[in-house]
């Protein structure tokens, strides 16, 4: 039987994304000595880890056509918990477990509100954000606390002297997410659900269970991102996570995962994280106002979504629909 092996659209998109990443690193590196430096590379990788984890998690809800606005608050909560408990009650391990457990509870609450109260994900997670931020402020009203070096060393150690361990963890997380999405029934059902919830449930998929899992995963990964952030800051900050919500959505969208669900994946998200991260480093190095970066971030997110939506609409038109 003859089979035409063609590069699928999604692969082509990934190649484009990674070529963009490569270009965004290589071209400035040609012209700028500080950009070429090992120190800069280490910095970029180090900064990518926290947002990277959060974006990995965010990929799941967006894949099923939902959204998780509570990830930022989970990041803050995690830094606060880490800074308060690791130093006082001593146990680094128990501290980490506590953070992850708290995040899993947040995810469960999100899932329950969405499944049982039938509140749309946007509002459900917005509501959770309020509750989680409040709890965080109760735990730690002002930035401070102390994350013991026994913990931070586990993140800041440089493999071969330049490669931060934090980024190694991110790569492991990326691999795990990729495996979950592509080699488990759960992962494949995430895609099916994102493609068409009704048809998926007709095919016998337990939709609510999948949703629950998705929001728990998203929350737990946000918490790992929070741990990475806490290790970098060496302290806690009840507001540090706020920008992570938008940035994570941005990275996921730029990475080619579509808001309509069912299309995309974490490999793209990783590229999205890299693109957004490199962008801000480049703008910094060329002395472009950090304020302009706000504008650019907003423009890029909107442009990425508009681009995706126009593309999917042209597919519909090709089918002869309205």
């Amino acid at each position: 039987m003859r089979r035409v092996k063609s590069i699928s659209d999604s692969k082509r998109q990934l190649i484009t994304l990674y070529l963009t990443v490569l270009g965004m690193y290589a071209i400035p590196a040609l012209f700028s000595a500080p950009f070429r430096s090992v120190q800069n590379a280490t910095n970029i990788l180090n900064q990518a880890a926290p947002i990277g984890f959060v974006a990995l998690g965010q990929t799941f809800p967006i894949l099923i056509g939902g959204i998780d606005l509570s990830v930022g608050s989970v990041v803050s909560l995690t830094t606060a918990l880490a800074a308060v408990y690791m130093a006082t009650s001593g146990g680094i391990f128990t501290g980490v477990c506590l953070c992850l457990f708290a995040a899993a509870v947040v995810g469960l609450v999100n899932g329950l509100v969405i499944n049982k109260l039938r509140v749309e994900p946007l509002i459900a997670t917005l509501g959770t954000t309020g509750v989680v931020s409040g709890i965080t402020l109760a735990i730690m009203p002002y930035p401070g606390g102390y994350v013991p070096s026994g913990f931070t060393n586990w993140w800041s150690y440089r493999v071969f002297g330049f490669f931060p361990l934090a980024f190694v963890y991110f790569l492991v997380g990326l691999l795990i997410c990729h495996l979950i999405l592509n080699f488990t029934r759960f992962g494949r059902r995430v895609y099916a659900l994102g493609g068409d919830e009704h048809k998926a449930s007709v095919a016998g998929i337990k939709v609510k269970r999948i949703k629950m899992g998705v929001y728990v995963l998203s929350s737990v990964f946000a918490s790992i991102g929070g741990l990475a952030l806490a290790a970098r800051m060496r302290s806690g900050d009840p507001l540090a996570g706020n920008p992570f919500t938008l940035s994570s959505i941005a990275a996921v969208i730029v990475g080619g995962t579509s808001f309509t669900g069912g299309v995309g994946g974490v490999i793209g998200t990783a590229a999205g994280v890299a693109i957004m991260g490199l962008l801000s480093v480049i703008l910094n190095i060329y002395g472009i106002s950090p304020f302009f970066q706000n504008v650019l971030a907003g423009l890029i997110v909107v442009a990425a979504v508009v681009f995706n939506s126009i593309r999917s609409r042209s597919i519909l038109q090709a089918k002869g629909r309205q």
Partner: protein
Amino acid sequence: MENRRCLLKMVDVAKSFPGVKALDGVNFSLEEGEIHALVGENGAGKTTLMNVLGGVLKPDSGQIFIEGKETDISNPLVARELGIAFIHQELNLIDELSVMENLFVGNEPVTRKKTIDWRAMEQRSLEILEKLGLDLDPHQIVRRLPMSLKQMIEIAKALVFEAQIIVMDEPTSSLTEGEAEILFKLIKNLKSHGKGIIYISHRMEEIFELSDRITVLRNGSYIATKDTSSTNHDELVALMIGGDPGQHFHKDESLRKDVVLDIRNLSGHDLVKDITLQVRAGEILGIAGLVGAGRTELLETVFGIYPPRKGEISFLGKPFKPSSPRASIKAGIAYVPEDRVAKGLFLDFDLYENIALVKSERDAIYGHTHLPKMRTEMNPVIGTMGIRTPSPRQQVKNLSGGNRQKVILARWVYAGMRVLLINEPTRGIDVGAKSEIYQLLKRLNREGVAIVMVSSDLSEIFGVSHRIAVMHEGRIVAVYDADQTDRQQVLSNMTGLIHSKV
């Protein structure tokens, strides 16, 4: 047919809904390697019978034997386990996934370590695709595939769980002729593998090309089962129609006046090809045709939903370009869609709001509107339309189908119009409300409104229209005066057997 295993036998199946006998003593059987066509007009009971087979509906009486064993099909999952697969008009494929993932969705093969066994999935997909003679890459994403291939993937899905009985409900309704040919080859291929196929279709030529036997239903009753080789088209149509002359309403010819809407060589949407039609004030022009013949698309083109590409429309003697629904409404064209919930009603709002909005949108000066004042104007309209509701403040979602339809009609009556395009006016509406709606249409005729009515119900087409236009694959193939033709002729035109231009 001798010595073949009997896959399915349904004996004396009956099912009633409140007020209607949907099935009354129906017999049906299916053998290994057989294509058994099920025919009948809309409402004859084909869908109900298949829903009984699929475990969606529970029969009131009668027995079902699967491979000789009496079985109680209590829910759709049981049907699936018994090896009964349904291929509906509406496909159940997830566009974003690949071919093979669609084949195995919800039933993914896993290795011993509980991870997805991609190799097994690919292998089995290839086997199944090969069995069907489909040259398809299992990794291909479904979205871009043509309808015909999607249909075949749906059929392949049936093979994944080794279905023996495959029910196909109008599988060709959205296929082109070439695509249908490929599908037929595949169906014959399935037959040669010993599958039993129940084939529901309105298209006679397909039925004669494919089937071994044909069972005719009419008004929920079992009429006959014929060997395809021993019957012909005319006999079949006669069996479907029976002696039923249809309800004939008194049609007042004197109401017909000048041409209001004059469509010449209109093309636009893929299913609107070179349409030429005239509609007169005070008449009802019925448009008959199969699902997918382009009837809805024609109405929606005139209403401004789909852009016209070629041809002219003149409305009240002046050239008219339907650029948007707003423009059409301003000109005096009204449209009552077939899907009243999706395209027509605001379910959470009351009758007043649902009725007032068209007029207030059209007539507002600088956007000013006065709903309280309009309410008093609307009360008589609601009264004359005979909408049964405890109060006009009732949310429309609490109304029955017939009353909902009347609300949409009231909207246009209140706004005033010259042409009413109405799509499936009585679908899902009970008998009593049906005749009330016909009366309303007639009243509109008297007031000089020209009506274009699309309907799948031939009794309705013959019952109320002055003239009948028949559409087939995007074209008008015939236009008759209603008393100059009969159902047989129209049915033949609809199914594409006779092409006669009038």
